């Protein structure tokens, strides 16, 4: 097996070998490797197939910007992870990784045929091709596209890992642990500011940490040595927290940032167990220093995507940090000085290399050094083509014309096994723009730079466009002193020597003798978009960068165009003949690199996914076989099936028992608001549609609450407990909103009212007993209470004791039966319930759930807010004009009740529906029409509640129908998928219109 590990570095422990599997084959790396560096050490460049043309692709970079080396980690159904960048994944014993987007394997891939038919798949291919015939879309095109779409495989079982969230506050947050970030963090922390420094790598130091060129020195030391000293010093600072393996995912307003910390992704399987995998940090910082550095640009030329073609600086890092050479015969193709550092470093380790430079000449220290070492340099030359299918084996260069627009002279063919490219540097302005910052364009080296506009945020170092070391250190120190309003003198006498780049030449799309249409000049490696695609988009009329991006999909892959966006912009600018700075950029959206769902969700999984509220009686319901329904956060018994019963059977039995003898309902979930104060009556007058001033103490009243727009918002019974004390009940789901709304009016519109509101929903448990035998059951529970209709009539309230515990008993009814609600302190709820059940045994007291409750009230035509209403129903629409006071001067929503729209007679109004076939049960939500022949069919309304009533032995329904009030007796039609159901409009009250049962 080839070994490209050619020298020792302090970051790789060669004595500790780590075995891993790649595409099923076992390899060895060393402790300290990333998956990418270990693969390169084994001579492996080919790591995947491109998305569209299935071209062989190799490792390009050494960091977060990697477009090609994305792989699938693990093979377990619950733990596999797609799209992991091999350049960021730290190697561990037993790691299993495989390449993506190829079948049957990366070396021989059927999809590779796309490369040869590529002239047939230009930009916008899918938009253009799959448009017609229309009928083909569902059966032919979509299944085909789905087969070939997507990258990697998702896990198919729940994630077994643990994730965590943490909230922190700091005076200063420094993003990025390169040289400028380290200086900034040290200055802040030494000035007694609580500081957090985050870096996505395992160790601090950025690209300076492996810098070893003699032309670049700080205080007479190599810059890497100097920086190691600084790192040692900051490690001692007590008010500086350093978080490595932590990357900022998003920078929101008010200096609120999200960071992802990787805790176990670098550990072997057995050491990962029971540990938190990733932690999401929610950071609030008073000040933020952005020191995210810059990434190297590729160059755009024909066949610039072959395996073995990397970014020049990445070759340098693999060599000097990981000890790995990317080849034995390397060519560096550049338009700037930084590739010379790589070249000199390679040369010193004995790796043969030469340089192709776009520039006509150059004259910095680094260039002199390279020349004096005898490194061959082709100035004013350009790479025009590369060769080699699975790996580059040679290339052609040509001389550039004076203006750089074309090539001249003869082709020179050079052999190589690796090509390093450097098109300059792109400052990472993601964080700056995410925080709302704007950008300036610097023509000199074609970069977008942060425009300083905030007192709370600053960019330093190369993300601010400062590229040489002297500039970086001096500017960082000055800016941080000013930004933090401190006077740090630590770097006053620091002596910096560095090479200064004097010459620049930038060409976004390099010239070629071959017509563009016949070249493959890739811009976005991951999404396979080429310079030709961009030009085609412009030709077809696209102008906005946001449109070109979406049409060509440039920058839309998992790497979000970190390497490609600038070239796309540059080519658009050149083609359209405008200045690049005027085009703007596409939006830099979070996250900077993809996050796992687990990190975002944290601990809120399984039973912690949402709050569950249970009543005190819950355990009894469980023991008695209740099926539950979610109402808001509450678990409410839905029905109580007996052996062999389905839902329909259970509900029919429960409903019949409640009307024939007695039923009991857990009503604890209804919202309860305690209202006290000398203006409580006046307050109720203003929030309900009916009058409250004359309600006697000890009496109850039903109220309807509107929104200011006149639409029904909530309803419930309110009891006057004493002169200035009421207990309001609300719907289960509306409780919190009603309290908020009431508080709003109280605090903002009527602050003069002396009223206090307290939510007591959780403080009381409620058992509601209804039916002809309810009075007898109450008599057993409260033998001393006079239950006679004279003393304790419908809509009144008494207090009594149950074994010394106070109870509030309301005689109110939601079923139309004589019924009592017993309220007790919540901790006694379970006992109360059991005592009721015990007392009711001889009367066949039947527990019933929400479904029966809904059926019983539908028989009586009582509305359920939220089921029969939907925020567009006025009291009049509900045929409840009786509850709207004509005398009251004002109440919430009153004025809206006679707006021109609310008095319209053809509004949808609540009606009853009876099916011609009494056994036919309508579907809730079904549409109602009068004529099925006319097209389009005129929709009159829909069914809101529908049941089979066991007490009436027929199907009943409530519905909202246009002009319904005037339609009583009319025939209507409910068209269903396979039949039309004939119905007759009826009254909304189906049972006991005279309310005789209330006092039965």
């Amino acid at each position, binding site marked *: 097996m080839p070994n490209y590990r050619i020298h020792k570095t302090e970051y790789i422990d060669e004595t500790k070998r780590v075995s891993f599997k790649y595409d099923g084959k076992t390899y060895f790396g060393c402790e300290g490797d990333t998956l990418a560096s270990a693969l390169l050490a084994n001579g492996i460049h080919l790591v995947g197939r491109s998305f569209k043309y299935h071209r062989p692709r190799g490792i390009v970079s050494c960091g977060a910007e990697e477009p090609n080396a994305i792989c699938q980690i693990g093979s377990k159904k619950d733990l596999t992870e797609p799209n992991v960048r091999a350049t960021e994944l730290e190697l561990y014993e037993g790691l299993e990784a495989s390449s993506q987007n190829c079948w049957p394997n990366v070396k021989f891939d059927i999809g590779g045929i796309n490369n040869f038919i590529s002239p047939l798949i230009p930009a916008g291919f899918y938009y253009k091709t799959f448009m017609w015939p229309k009928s083909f879309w569902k059966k032919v095109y979509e299944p085909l596209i789905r087969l070939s779409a997507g990258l990697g495989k998702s896990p198919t079982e729940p994630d077994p890992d643990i994730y965590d969230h943490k909230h922190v506050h700091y005076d200063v947050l420094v993003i990025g642990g390169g040289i400028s970030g380290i200086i900034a963090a040290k200055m802040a922390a030494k000035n007694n500011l609580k500081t957090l420094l985050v870096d996505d790598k395992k160790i601090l130091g950025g690209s300076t940490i492996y810098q070893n060129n003699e032309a670049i020195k700080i205080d007479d030391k190599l810059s890497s040595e100097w920086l190691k000293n600084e790192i040692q010093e900051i490690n001692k600072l007590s008010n500086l927290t350093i978080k490595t393996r932590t990357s900022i995912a998003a920078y929101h*307003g008010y200096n609120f940032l999200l960071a992802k910390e990787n805790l176990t992704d670098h550990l072997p399987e057995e050491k990962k167990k029971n540990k938190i995998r990733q932690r999401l940090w929610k950071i609030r910082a008073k000040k933020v220093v952005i020191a995210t550095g810059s990434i190297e640009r590729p160059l755009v030329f024909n066949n610039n995507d072959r395996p073995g073609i990397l970014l020049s600086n990445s070759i340098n890092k693999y060599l000097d940090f990981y000890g790995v050479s990317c080849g034995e015969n390397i060519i560096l193709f550049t338009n700037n000085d930084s590739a010379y550092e790589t070249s000199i470093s390679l040369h010193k380790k004995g790796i043969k290399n030469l340089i192709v430079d776009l520039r006509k000449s150059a004259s910095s220290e680094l260039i002199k050094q390279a020349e004096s070492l005898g490194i061959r340099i082709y100035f004013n030359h350009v790479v025009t083509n590369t060769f080699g299918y699975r790996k580059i084996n040679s290339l052609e260069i040509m001389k550039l014309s004076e203006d750089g627009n074309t090539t001249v002279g003869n082709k020179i063919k050079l052999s190589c096994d690796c090509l390093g490219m450097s098109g300059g540097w792109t400052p990472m302005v993601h964080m700056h723009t995410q925080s709302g910052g704007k950008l300036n364009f610097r023509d000199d080296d074609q970069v977008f730079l942060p425009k300083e506009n905030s007192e709370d945020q600053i960019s330093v170092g190369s993300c601010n466009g400062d590229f040489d070391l002297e500039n970086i250190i001096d500017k960082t120190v000055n800016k941080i002193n000013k930004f933090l309003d401190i006077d740090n003198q630590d770097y006053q006498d620091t002596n910096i020597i560095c090479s200064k780049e004097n010459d620049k030449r930038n060409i976004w799309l390099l010239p070629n003798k071959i017509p563009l249409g016949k070249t493959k000049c890739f811009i976005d490696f991951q999404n396979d978009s080429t310079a030709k695609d961009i030009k085609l988009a412009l030709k077809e009329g696209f102008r906005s960068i946001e449109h070109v991006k979406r049409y060509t999909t440039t920058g839309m892959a998992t790497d979000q165009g970190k390497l490609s966006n600038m070239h796309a912009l540059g080519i658009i600018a050149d083609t359209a003949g405008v200045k690049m700075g005027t085009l703007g950029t596409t939006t830099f959206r979070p996250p900077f690199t993809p996050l796992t769902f687990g990190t975002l969700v944290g601990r809120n999984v399984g039973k912690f996914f949402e709050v569950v509220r249970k009543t005190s009686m819950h355990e009894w319901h469980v023991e008695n076989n209740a099926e539950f329904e979610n109402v808001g956060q509450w678990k409410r018994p839905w029905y109580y099936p007996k052996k062999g019963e389905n839902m329909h059977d259970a509900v029919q039995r429960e409903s019949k028992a409640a009307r024939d003898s007695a039923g009991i309902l857990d009503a604890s979930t209804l919202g309860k608001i305690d209202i006290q104060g000398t203006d409580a009556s006046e307050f109720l007058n203003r929030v309900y549609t009916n009058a409250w001033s004359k309600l006697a103490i000890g009496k109850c009243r039903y109220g309807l609450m509107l929104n200011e727009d006149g639409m029904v918002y909530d309803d419930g019974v309110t009891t006057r407990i004493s002169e200035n004390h009421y207990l309001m009940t609300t719907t289960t789901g509306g409780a919190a909103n009603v309290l908020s709304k009431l508080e709003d009016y109280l605090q903002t519109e009527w602050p003069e009212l002396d009223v206090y509101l307290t939510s007591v929903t959780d403080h009381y448990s409620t058992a509601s007993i209804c039916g002809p035998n309810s009075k007898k059951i109450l008599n057993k529970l409260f033998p001393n209470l006079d239950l006679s209709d004279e003393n304790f009539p419908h809509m009144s309230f008494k207090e009594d004791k149950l074994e010394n515990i106070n109870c509030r008993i309301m005689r109110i009814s939601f079923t139309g039966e004589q019924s009592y609600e017993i309220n007790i302190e919540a901790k006694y709820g379970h006992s109360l319930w059991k005592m009721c059940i015990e007392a009711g045994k001889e009367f066949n007291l039947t527990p019933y759930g929400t479904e029966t409750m809904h059926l019983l009230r539908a028989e009586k035509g009582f509305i359920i807010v939220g089921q029969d209403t939907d925020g567009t129903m006025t009291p009049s629409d509900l045929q409840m004009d009786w509850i709207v006071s004509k005398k009251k001067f004002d109440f919430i929503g*009153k*004025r809206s009740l006679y707006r021109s729209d609310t008095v319209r007679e053809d509004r949808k109004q609540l009606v009853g529906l009876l099916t011609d076939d009494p056994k036919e049960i309508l579907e809730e939500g079904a549409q109602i029409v009068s004529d099925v022949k006319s097209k389009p069919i005129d929709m009159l309304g829909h069914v809101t509640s529908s049941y089979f009533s066991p007490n009436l032995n027929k199907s009943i329904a409530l519905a909202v129908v246009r002009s319904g009030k005037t339609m009583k007796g009319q025939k209507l039609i409910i068209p269903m998928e396979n039949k039309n159901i004939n119905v007759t409009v009826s009254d909304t009250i189906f049972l006991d219109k005279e309310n005789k049962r209330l006092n039965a």
Partner: protein
Amino acid sequence: MFLINCPFCGERDQSEFSSGGEAHIVRPKQPTELSDDEWAEYLFMRKNIKGIQFERWNHAHGCRKWFNVVRDTSNDKILSVYKMGEKPPVNYK
């Protein structure tokens, strides 16, 4: 994610608050005397300004108090907070 300085509790995360829309829209004292248009003006019409806007916020998961906020909607900077019933600061018009 804003940091809102509740006048009763101090600086808290936005997730503790709920927004109540434009401030200083006074509920008419005699709604019955208003025309449909005048009532609709109160009920529906909101300025939705790009720039300095006066808003109501409620510390819903805190002290439950409503208060007013002056916010520049173009950059989300909160310029001032003040209690219900207090006069809006005059320097933001």
